[in-house]
């Protein structure tokens, strides 16, 4: 699903943010990107959703070489890549429902489809009663759940999360990670950049460790996921087709 070939990203006047990074993330895999601040985690994610162009190297996302995409094709690629940020990036002038609807409006979905999908997504994260609320009145955990709903609105093939729990306490962090795991359980490839080692330990998945822009460790050991407290198959099913159909019925 995601392949990087000798990717280097340099910014003028500073050391490379990424240096000769090569990696392969197969379809449906869950990957943690770890490393201290400035290790290159955010830059790596940015190059995948084309917010940054690599200085050297090639990146394939879903078989498409991002270097060869024009602006319109990048827009189309991004419809298949959901992104979640540490600071949520919700639009304060729009309601919670409108924030989620935004991603669907962009792809030209019809009003009825949008309403159903937004309700379903918010219901799946327990926020359906906040649909008309101002996002600023929500707690950090709730805002991040809205942001995850928005990222999942278009059934993305890839979900990228940049420090999604950075502003949350440990309990809320686990909730958000569960949502990401649920998305992964439905087949979405997920990459989570984090420096929270506790979470990485708790949700044991492939870990790519970056340091000063280089991959210094890639632990591909199979996932051992303890399902009870943070299981991917909980009742809520954000983004799932079956659940949505049931909700519509």
């Amino acid at each position: 699903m995601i392949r990087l070939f000798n990717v280097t990203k340099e910014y003028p006047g500073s050391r490379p943010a990424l240096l000769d990074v090569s990696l392969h993330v197969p379809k449906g895999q869950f990957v943690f990107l770890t490393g201290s601040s400035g290790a290159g985690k955010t830059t790596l994610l940015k190059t995948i959703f084309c917010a940054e162009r690599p200085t050297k190297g090639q990146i394939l996302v879903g078989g498409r070489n991002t270097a060869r995409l024009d602006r319109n094709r990048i827009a189309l690629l991004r419809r298949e890549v959901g992104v979640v940020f540490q600071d949520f990036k919700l639009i304060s002038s729009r309601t919670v429902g409108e924030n989620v609807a935004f991603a669907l409006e962009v792809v030209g979905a019809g009003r009825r489809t949008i309403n159903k999908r937004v309700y379903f997504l918010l219901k799946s994260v327990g926020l359906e009663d906040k649909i008309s609320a101002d996002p600023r009145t929500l707690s950090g955990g709730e805002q991040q759940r809205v942001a995850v709903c928005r990222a999942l609105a278009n059934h993305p093939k890839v979900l990228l999360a940049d420090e999604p729990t950075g502003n949350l306490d440990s309990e809320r962090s686990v909730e958000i990670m569960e949502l990401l795991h649920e998305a992964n359980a439905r087949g979405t490839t997920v990459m989570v950049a984090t420096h929270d080692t506790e979470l990485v330990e708790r949700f044991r998945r492939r870990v790519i460790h970056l340091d000063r822009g280089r991959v210094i460790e890639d632990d591909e050991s199979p996932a051992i996921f303890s399902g009870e407290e943070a299981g991917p198959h909980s009742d809520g099913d954000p983004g799932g087709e079956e659940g949505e159909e049931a909700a519509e019925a």
Partner: protein
Amino acid sequence: MSRLVYFVGRALRGMRQALFINVVAVLTMAIALFVVSVFAGAVGQMQSLLDAWGQDIVVAIYLDDDASAEDVHRIKKAVAFAAGEDSRVEHIARDEALERLRNSLGEDAGILEGLDRNPLPASVEVRGGVTKEGPEALQNLAELAMELPGVTEADYGREWVSRLEGLITLGSMAGFLVGGLILLAAVVTVSNTIRLALFARKDEIEIMKLCGATDSFVRAPFLIEGGIQGTLGATVALLSSLLLWLLLLPRIEQGLTDAFAMQVEVGMPAGVLVLLVPGGALLGLAGAALSVGRFLRV
């Protein structure tokens, strides 16, 4: 269609969010278009008035009292040839000239009673043909007539025709310059309003693009916003112009009638008024395009 409704909805929502600045932009556009339309209307009316009078300009060639019938025939023939095919050449005998004067004086015709002899010369009047072609043609015709034997003077109101034409040329140039500057200011105002809207919604645009919005999807509402500002401004300008013309027309007509001692009819500058709204919409669109294009390149 539903896409257009969506974009218009977003444009209106954006305008509502920054109501004050949008009202300022609409009023600036309205004032600019109002001034330009009044200016263009006035210059256009003067031009058409001059054209109308041009149709009616008479070159009067005054004849020597001793001119014979043969001289008159020769003069008529030469002048008719010089004035062109569709010209009309008429000989006005002295008695006829006096009779005309008496008729034009109306109730004051009594002042002519004291004359012991007819002081008016006979003349040849030329209408149409080259007389419609402006001051230069009129002057050439008059100069040619002056060279003919039996002619004492040739007159066509040279002074005021030249002055009026000069005035209109000056007015048109000033109008183009001032109007152009005012319109430029209006476009810049719309452009800046849209730029402010773009900055105010920077985060929204960023998220839009992250969600996979194409450039045209991002641009469309802002362009529509500019178009709406231009259209609203032009509508205000149109209504104000209509009101102004309705109020002023009778006065202008009266003033011109008094000034030129002839019945003058001035119509509304329909062409200018019809172009106002589409013109305003285009200007608004252009202003928005300036900012949107620049913003998205960053």
